[in-house]
């Protein structure tokens, strides 16, 4: 029932965005002359990306450009798909220390909040969205956090409008945190796995005994009806279970559980994932990780190192680069910094193209939306960035950012503040937006 709600919501959002696209961006744009990285194929020198009505209609070196098309000259520039941040609280955490603005953690029941749909709290008017887009982040996965089962994640585009307009797909994953027994409400790692196993078994039982459940003729379950309902796509392997976990032994335990229940597993954080890179590759388990943390920050992350992403990538593990540099609470202010993670991943051994893929097509693939975003191919949303140079270098600017075929030149709240205080003392009249 709950799922039907999601699907109808997705259908609705599709309709809404299609309507919006036809009204707002019924236009043709040709980005010409740049070095184009479609990601789905080899780079094209002097390539053209043709956009019609918000979608990519052609990519190549010999694309005929319709008369009247708006042209963006990308000569000497690099053209890529818009970047995807695969794990953020953007939109659900505006100011970490102001509880009013925090919506990423559900109370749940006994540390299980599988039914929690984090995107229902996503604030499309967050002042942190425009800075992200301005720096080339065009989509992001909004993740719930906390407890044992944190809830469901969604992937959205950074477009104006409502949350409904933003959603690409929801849910795209169930999120569980299995690295911290205390946070899961148990006192040992093994007990944590017992609890997770019990939830999965109850979900299976619930799935096949719904009528009995409705007649109150089943035993008591570990989770509520809605939580069990939400877990069904997980046990059916229709959405991945993202487990936040660092320690090698915990990753191994997650792999066992995934085999036992035939789950589609994904690792987030994964400080020690490099220690089992071959097994993760063999099990086709993607890892979301960063490249800017080498601190043995707790006893579950003693093996943390900056080569993690490179080693996983070389072993054939699908890697999506996320922020993990520590600090944490300022993460939503710095959604752009996955570019810096990528640059550091390269400095610590990752292949440049692999790093680029890790912020574009790989996230789209592992979250099941590669038919919509993540590459420059006909039919995909026209989420495109023209970079002044290597996208991972600090000196590089995102000169043109297009989301669903519309170019944005954002003036952010930060920009307004900087204009006001450029010359001191400042004047305090209302600046033009």
């Amino acid at each position, binding site marked *: 029932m709950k799922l039907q709600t999601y699907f109808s919501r997705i259908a609705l959002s599709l309709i809404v965005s299609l309507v919006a696209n036809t009204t707002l961006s019924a236009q043709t744009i040709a980005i010409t002359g740049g070095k184009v990285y479609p990601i789905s194929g080899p780079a094209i020198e002097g390539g053209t990306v043709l956009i019609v009505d918000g979608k990519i209609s052609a990519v190549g070196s010999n694309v005929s450009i319709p008369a009247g098309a708006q042209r963006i000259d990308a000569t000497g520039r690099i053209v890529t798909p818009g970047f995807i941040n695969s794990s953020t609280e953007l939109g659900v955490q505006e100011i970490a*220390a102001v509880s009013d603005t925090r919506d990423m953690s559900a109370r749940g029941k006994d540390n299980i909040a599988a039914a929690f749909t984090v995107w229902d709290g996503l604030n499309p008017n967050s002042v942190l969205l425009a800075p992200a887009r301005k720096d080339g982040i065009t989509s992001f996965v909004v993740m719930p956090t906390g407890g044992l089962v944190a809830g469901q994640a969604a992937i959205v585009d950074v477009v104006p409008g409502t949350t409904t307009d933003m959603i690409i797909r929801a849910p795209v994953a169930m999120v569980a945190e299995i690295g911290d027994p205390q946070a899961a409400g148990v006192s040992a790692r093994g007990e944590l796995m017992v609890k997770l196993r019990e939830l999965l078994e109850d979900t299976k039982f619930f799935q096949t005994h719904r009528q009995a459940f409705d007649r109150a003729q089943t035993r008591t379950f570990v989770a509520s009806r809605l939580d069990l309902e939400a877990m069904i796509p997980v046990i059916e392997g229709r959405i991945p279970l993202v487990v936040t976990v660092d320690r090698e032994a915990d990753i191994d335990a997650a792999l066992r559980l995934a085999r036992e229940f035939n789950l589609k597993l994904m690792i987030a954080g994964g400080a020690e994932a490099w220690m089992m890179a071959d097994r993760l590759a063999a099990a086709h388990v993607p890892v979301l990780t960063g490249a800017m943390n080498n*601190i*043995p920050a707790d006893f579950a992350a*003693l093996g943390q190192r900056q080569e993690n992403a490179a080693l996983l990538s070389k072993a054939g593990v699908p890697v999506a680069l996320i922020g993990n540099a520590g600090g944490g609470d*300022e993460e939503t*202010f710095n959604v752009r910094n996955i570019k810096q993670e990528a640059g550091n991943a390269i400095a610590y051994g990752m292949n440049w193209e692999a790093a680029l893929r890790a912020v574009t097509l790989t996230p789209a693939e592992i979250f099941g939306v590669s038919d919509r975003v993540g590459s420059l191919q006909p039919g995909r949303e026209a989420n495109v960035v023209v970079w002044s140079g290597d996208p991972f270098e*600090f000196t*590089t*600017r995102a000169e043109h950012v297009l989301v669903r075929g519309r170019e944005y030149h954002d003036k952010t709240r*930060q920009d307004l503040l900087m204009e006001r205080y450029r010359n001191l003392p400042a004047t305090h009249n209302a600046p033009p937006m």
Partner: protein
Amino acid sequence: MRAPFCLLLAVVTACASAAPSTSRSPTPARDSAAAAIGLGSTSTPNANPFPSTYKPFPSRTTVIRNVNILTAAGPTIRNGAILMQNGKIAAVGATVAAPADAVVIDGAGRYVTPGIIDDHSHLGVYAAPGGNALSDGNEATNPVTPQVWAEHSVWPQDPQFPRNLAGGITTLQVLPGSANLFGGRSVVLKVVPGRTVQEMKFPGAKYGLKMACGENPKRVYGNRGGPQTRMGNVAGYRAAWIRAADYRRKWDKWNADHKGDPPTRDLGLETLAEVLRGNILVHMHCYRADEMAQMIDIAHEFGYKIRSFHHGVEAYKIADLLAKEGIGASVWADWGSFKMEAIDAVKGNMALVNHAGARVIVHSDDPSGSQRLNQEAAKAMAAGAEIGLPISEDEAIKWLTINPAWALDLDDKIGSLEPGKNADVILWSGDPFSVYSRPDKVWIDGALLYDRSDPSEQWRTDFELGFVPFTGTSR
């Protein structure tokens, strides 16, 4: 007031470069009366009960040739050379003469900079692997704790130290946390292996006093007797300074005439009195522009100086005031929005502060960020370019080196590549403001303490042995 301090400097510096000192205190001889009572019961300016026992590590005369040098003291030298001898910079220039036995390094395509200085670190006091057992940075039992000294919390086996060295940090100031109005004394450390914190202490460095304004103290103490408000914070600072002024007057009088019983020694007031005497530098955690202006007024009221505002995300709003007062801005490149007093953070903060003529310092407050302060500076340079305030590499390198050296009052010893200064030097694999560049080698006082090409020689703390897998690769 300056004379005893110079004496102290001379004694300690001498200790560092020659034989270990047997002297426990550099207290001037005229204080024999105090010595008779027992040094521990008297309050003496610039007392040094926990003296540095740092000794430079063995070094070899080294010349790096054919290398790009950002000196932090002038324009970039392209394809130049630098000579390190006896722990000091001996020569820097287009060419330098080097003795025949010097180690010669070809720096083609690479860069040399001064060692990076982080004036806001919690290494050792919030050591990895974290948890309560190693959480030693905030004495959050009272909002006024100037009596605590960060060095008494520093764990020299914190594995974050070698990681910071590998990121090019050669000197750092370890501060207490920001729970308290007065958090305690800081300590300046060289990022070197040591069995004791004394072996890491920068000889002759002044102490700092950590103070904090705004949300943190009122959050921590709001329901624990106060302060509960910002006005409560200000009342707390002023009450403490009034007592400190009184204490200083009494002790200065007794130290001058030794008449009658000495006043009762108070560790907290002693620290504050040393600030009033100009012997300890104030490092003030403060986010908002309006609060920084109030802290400046309080400093004027009691006659002390604030050396640098730390975390001043709104420094750009009062950069003219900071320039006029000669106060540094120790700030992040792009942290913001994590609490209410951080919502006006802008990525152009450093560029705007620089534009107004105030002193920019790239700081970390983070054991991970400090390993990449060069990248933080690079982000701030990009933000400057975006608002039409381009920052040259020659300017940005100062934010990482000579400016924090000034914040610690050590700019006569470290922070730039000039003859006579300590040979704290980084050889980078490429342009230090590129995301792809990493330190290849790091020298402190001329001793090669980090070499990326030789993992087996890299510093591993006691903690890491066994616990942390040795990967045989560079950090």
